């Protein structure tokens, strides 16, 4: 890999001749090596689904969470370096807490997204710090309704109806575009997200994975929570059955 950005890629403080900051691009590569995460903003809420690749059979199932609570009404999921994500989660929680202290109110999703974007961008300015090696998705329900944001290591934040990050993000985006998101309820979205993750999971390269699902919707009283076990398991079982049927048909 000596070809890519030779000479211009050693620190954040160097632009390449074609105007790129290679360190930031490389940070995105770290994101692409991680398990896929999908976020869908639908009629009445936002749903996250994460393909949590299992590195060892000895791992306790719910450990190494990929989805976090930032405040009661905001959730965060990520793809990329888990340790970096932990820093971002702590920062987001701090911002939410300080906002609440000062304004006596929940932090709106778009305000937190912009603050996190500014925070991540700051780490692309100095040679003695590296950018964060993860992209994060924020889900929230506030006075503007349900919202979904994605922030890249470069510090750009986007507001989406549906998006994905990680290994199979392109394939997942293709599946997302087929859905009519504004007509789905959060319950239906849970099933769709499960289906997408199972479809884009690479059976050959990655063996086992655990599916983490979270939602924020009227059914969860507009609080960000992990999808209740029964619903999650039912969705997974249904998806597995559908995929087996599809495989049988192909023969």
């Amino acid at each position, binding site marked *: 890999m000596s070809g890519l950005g030779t000479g211009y890629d050693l620190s954040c403080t160097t632009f390449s001749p074609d105007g790129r900051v290679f360190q930031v691009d490389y940070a995105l590569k770290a994101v692409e090596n991680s398990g896929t995460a999908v976020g869908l903003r639908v009629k009445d809420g936002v749903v996250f689904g994460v393909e949590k690749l299992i590195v060892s059979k000895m791992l306790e199932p719910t450990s190494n969470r990929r989805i976090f609570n930032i405040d009661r009404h905001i959730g965060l999921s990520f793809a990329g370096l888990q340790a970096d994500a932990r820093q971002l989660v702590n920062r987001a929680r701090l911002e939410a807490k300080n906002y609440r202290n*000062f*304004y*006596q*109110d929940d932090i*709106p999703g*778009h*305000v937190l997204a*912009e603050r996190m974007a500014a925070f991540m961008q700051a780490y692309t300015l100095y040679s003695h710090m590296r950018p964060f090696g993860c992209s994060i998705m924020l889900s929230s329900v506030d*006075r503007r309704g349900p919202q979904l944001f994605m922030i890249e290591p470069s510090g750009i934040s986007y507001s989406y109806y549906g998006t994905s990050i990680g290994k199979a993000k392109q394939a997942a985006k293709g599946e997302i575009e087929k859905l009519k998101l504004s007509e789905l309820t959060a319950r239906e979205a849970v099933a769709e997200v499960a289906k997408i993750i199972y479809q884009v999971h690479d059976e050959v390269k990655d063996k086992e994975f655990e599916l983490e699902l979270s939602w924020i919707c009227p059914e969860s009283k507009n609080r960000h929570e992990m999808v209740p076990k029964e619903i999650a398991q039912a969705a997974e079982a249904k998806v597995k059955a559908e995929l087996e049927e599809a495989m049988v048909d192909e023969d």
Partner: protein
Amino acid sequence: MDTMTNPQPFEGEHRMGTTIMAAVFDGGVVMGADSRTTTGSYIANRVTDKITPVYDNIFCCRSGSAADTQAISDYVTLYLNLHGNELGEQPEIKTAAALFQTLCYQNKNALQAGIIVAGYHPRTGGEVYTIPLGGALVKSPWTIGGSGSSYIYGFCDTNFRDGMTKQEAMDFVTRAISLAITRDGSSGGVCRLCIIDKTGVERVMVPGNKLPKAYED
């Protein structure tokens, strides 16, 4: 200096003895205040404007120490404008009230400020909040404050109704302020009104000789 044996006309800092109030009507709020500022028994300003903007559609009525309330409302104006920029829309009235409360409560030992916060927001309609001396925050459909308010509790309790029209609310406030001016020595001058609704802000000034007449007048 003992004022009984050695009376001085100019005493201490500028105070707003005051009558202030605000009331919600169907579609907005009406705020009212008298216009007297005193230093002791000298009337330093007889045409004061005690109703100050902190944002486009959010105002506050100030009572107590003029210096304290001006300093507080200047800070709140600053914070609210920064907040509105980040939010990308008009802040809610309760946010303005929360900022006032933080300042009034955290500095309660040093301040003498009784503040009424009111305004109109498209999502919530008209809202009124009161922050009395200790820094408590109370939301209600109508509220009165200042030294002159003691004399009009009965009038206001009897005459306020939910869902008044704009004109009814203006009359309610004007009559109340007028009665308080009649009885309270620290309140006087003109009655200033501020009506905030979805079309914006309207300022009205009712001169002393045009105020509605009470019994003895």
